[in-house]
Every structure is written in C-alpha cells, then in structure tokens.
C-alpha cells in the first residue's frame, strides 16, 4: 500500500509530468537507457569472458576487471538515472507490471552481487590465487543475472 502511494507520487511529480507530456524527451531517455545498458553489457561481458578465460587471455584479468568496472559504474548510474525518469512517466502502469518487478529484483540482485560478492572476491587476492571454480561460478552468475536484467527490461513493454 505504501509502495503504491510512492508510485502515485512519482507519476504526479515533475519528472512524471515531463515524461508523459513530451514524448520526444521520453523517447530520448529510452535511447540513453539502451545505450547505457550497452556499455554496462560490454563491461560485464568483457570482464566475465576474461574471468572464464575465453577473451583477452594474454591480458591480466585484474587489469581487465578493474578497468571494465569503472565503466560498469558509470553505465549503472546512467541506467538507473534514465530508468527512474522513464518509470516516473508510467509509474502506476509499472506498479501492476510483473516484468517490471522481475527487472527490479534482478537489478537489485545484480547490484548486490557485484558490490558484495564479485568485487570483494576479485579484490581479495591476485586472481591466480583464487579458486578457479569460484571465479568461474561468479562469472557465469554475473552473465546470467545481467542478461536477466536486460531481457526482463524488454518484456516490460510487452505486457
């Protein structure tokens, strides 16, 4: 109930009004959201395929993971900022959309996973000293969770 009130407030806010009134602005925000997702996806794929020893095998995985993570953070901020703007315009519709909640849960899980599990693990020791199985499981889980975020995001528009 409280959450519904928050969604009602969001739709009536200035952000919601701008998004609803100016279709062009909303469409540009959608494009920026998609571009941010592309950069985020690139950072995730490059890092995880390196951790799985598929890509850039002759480049230190620490270097790849650290540098890709900088872009991951920029992209994540942009995904969330544009996402909030888009959500404000159709907040009430999203409240009743099961794919929206699936995306929110997977996004939340993805962010927690990166900052509470993946980065602490990768920063805990030189990668060569980490258990190869742990590193592979983390990389596969990361690919799975971020693919889910992207896919569920697309399905919001279908329902």
């Amino acid at each position: 109930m409280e959450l519904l009130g928050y969604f009602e407030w969001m739709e009536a806010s200035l952000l919601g009004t701008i998004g609803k009134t100016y279709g062009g602005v909303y469409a540009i925000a959608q494009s920026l959201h998609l571009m941010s997702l592309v950069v985020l996806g690139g950072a995730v794929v490059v890092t995880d395929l390196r951790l799985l020893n598929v890509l850039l095998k002759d480049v230190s995985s620490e270097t790849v993971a650290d540098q890709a993570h900088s872009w991951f953070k920029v992209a994540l901020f942009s995904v969330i900022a544009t996402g909030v703007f888009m959500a404000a315009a159709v907040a009430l519709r999203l409240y009743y959309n099961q794919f929206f909640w699936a995306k929110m849960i997977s996004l939340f899980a993805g962010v927690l996973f990166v900052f509470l599990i993946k980065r602490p693990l990768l920063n805990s020791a030189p990668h060569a000293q980490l258990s190869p199985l742990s590193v592979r499981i983390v990389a596969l889980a990361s690919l799975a969770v971020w693919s889910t975020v992207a896919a569920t995001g697309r399905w919001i528009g279908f329902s």
Partner: protein
Amino acid sequence: MNHQLLELAQWIESLPWSTGIHESYYMYNWIESTHVLSLSLFLGMLFFIDFRMLGLVLTTVPATKIAERLHTPMMIGFAVMIVTGLLLYFAVPVRVTQSIWFRIKFLLLVLAGINAWYFNRRMRNSADSWDKQDRAPRPLRVSVTLSLTLWAGVITTGRLIAYDWYDCYRVQSEFIAWAAGCMAD
C-alpha cells in the same frame, strides 16, 4: 522505388510465417529480446574497442590486440542482431518499410558500415606506429567518434520505430510523406 518496396513488403506480409511471428506473443517478444541482447553484445564490444582507441580504457594493452580479441564476440553479436532484426522486419514489413525512422536507421547502418571499413583499413595500415600509445592518431579518433555517434543514432532511430508520430496513416507534411515513402491507397 517506394512502390516496389511497398509491393515487396506487402508480399512478405502475405506469407503465413510473417503473420505467425507477428501474432505469436512469445515468438515476437523472444525475437525482440534476443535482438536487444545481441545488440548489447555487439555494441558493448564495439564501444570497448572505440573507447580503447580514444584512450578511455585498457590503455596499457595494445589497441590492435583489444580490437582483434573482441572481434569474434562482436561479430557473433552482429550476426544474431542482423538475423533477429530481419525477423522483426518480416513480422511487420509494411509499417516498417514506411517508417521514416527505419529509413534513417538503415542509412545510418550503411554509413556505420562504410566508416568501420575505413577504420579497419586505416588501423591495419598504421598500427605499428601507435599501437602501444594511449590514444590512436587523430584521423582514427575522428573515425571512432563518428562510429559512436552513428551507432547512437542507430539505437535512437531503432527505438523510435515503435512510435507512430510520423506513420503514413497520419496527416504528414509533404517532406515526411516523401521521406517515409508513404503511398496513396
């Protein structure tokens, strides 16, 4: 030209599998989701290569090494993106053929392809002199900036196809009607 394109689109739309994709909730949505995921893979790799050329990421790694190593996953993403993109076109061919956004997107794709060809040729011919530097030489950086701009345009126009502001069923200016290829019924 517009007449032939429309006839082709109408013929495709008359095929059972065009209607099948269009009317299948799950099939259409899975194709579109796969299109977005493959686009993320393709452009994610491309942006990384471009960012390296601009000196924004992995500057300690030779630029051509990044370009070569990311080429395969990038092309896998590209192939899936093209196949799913064609399937999406086949599902709604008449409307898409007469979409001004689709036409601009197609033009931007062609320009991005020409730019990629130019970039690759120039990179291969000159890499020895700058490969380990933080940034690629200016002409290549210009090409990379153009690449990022063109692909941002492809994403934006692709997204705008969903909007019907300039669809032919609405009253449009002569220029829009011409650019979208609107034909009288």
